[in-house]
């Protein structure tokens, strides 16, 4: 799964044709870390239809805030660089909800 940072976010997400899902997570966010194996699995399963990437907000705080992300976990769908839909919070970001988010946007 592609790891995003402030150097590649613009090119890989905002300037990208097609659909991108970004997993905003953090080094101290336990729910985020618990979700990661599921996100990895989904990235493999749907990898040919959607680009799934992750962004460590602990190392990229300003970038996250620029995307108006101030809470974890958050998952955002971008289509042709434009943000389409998002889910946030541990209760909302279940593996099933993330898969549903992917399915309705591919």
């Amino acid at each position, binding site marked *: 799964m592609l790891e995003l940072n402030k150097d590649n976010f613009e090119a890989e997400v905002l300037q990208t044709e097609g659909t991108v899902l970004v997993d905003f997570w*953090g080094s*101290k*966010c*336990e*729910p*985020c*870390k*618990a979700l990661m194996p*599921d996100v990895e699995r989904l990235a493999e399963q749907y990898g040919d239809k959607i680009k799934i990437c992750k962004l460590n*907000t*602990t190392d990229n*705080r300003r970038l*996250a*805030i620029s995307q*108006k*992300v*101030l*809470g*974890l*976990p*958050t998952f955002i769908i971008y289509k042709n660089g434009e943000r389409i839909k*998002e889910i*946030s*919070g*541990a*209760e909302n970001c*279940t*593996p*099933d909800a993330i898969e549903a988010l992917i399915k309705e946007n591919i």
Partner: protein
Amino acid sequence: MSKIYDVAIVGGGPAGLSAGLYASRSKLSSIIIEKGKWGGQAATTEELENYPGSIEHPTGPKLMDRMKAQAEAFGTEFVKDEVTGFELSEDIKRIRLSNGEIQARTIIIATGAQPMLLGAPGEMELRGKGVSYCATCDADFFTELEVVVVGGGDAAVEEAIYLTRFAEKVTIVHRRDEFRAAKSIVAKAMENEKIDIIWNTVVEEIYGDGIVEGVKLKNAQTGEVTDFRTDGVFVFVGTKPIAEFAKGVVDMNEKGYILGDEEMRTSAEGVYVAGDVRVKSLRQVITAAADGAIAATTAERYIEEKFHKLKR
């Protein structure tokens, strides 16, 4: 035919992990079903100074990792899935999952509780944009910024102290004129120069254009409404039980907590309850762990009495 477990434990927090440990040490086959993160609410609590023996490694996530590893070492199995319902009609109980089914002789419900919402306008819209229920998850974002903490219990005051490591200023807004939190925690907060407290006040609204910009505060005595600029709102106004899936199966109180006796028995035979989801007065890691141990021991006794003639 699929495996029949002696004990199926729903929930992987301290109650469930302790139940798993005690069950597996009693040579019962056990499995813990968890839909979210292992360790439950304790896994997102940085300060856990009130759990005996955890003074050197006081963080919740580390303690929960060790609890899980310990249960695993004695043979407890783990599965990530969500329980959708039970079938208790026979000796062998069926636990329906989103992705399958588990069969077991006994069930321990240890699903815990989750943070309650504030119920103020703007809260849902600004969730993840400055409104948070998890300090360890989101504190980073508020480095050198100002935040409001809503609540007056242990969680609110403890997390306010934790947030001072990041935020420039932390203002606790509490609807009463004193905290319910433990005195030692309150004293720590009072001494902290970064913490301000606004008493007798409720948050009436959270506002901001795509990101939290402030809150409207209402004085509970005078009714006066004031504007308070802030970058973040952390909500710790109590918890609610996670027991929807068990409605109609076991008896609950009016708030939806499951009723259990001293031995953790519920109203359903062979079904036990442990931890925060149980009707009780003190919801802490230590009482959850104790419940788990008792529930597993009661389950063991039940299995001995009921199934000892059956070939296991």
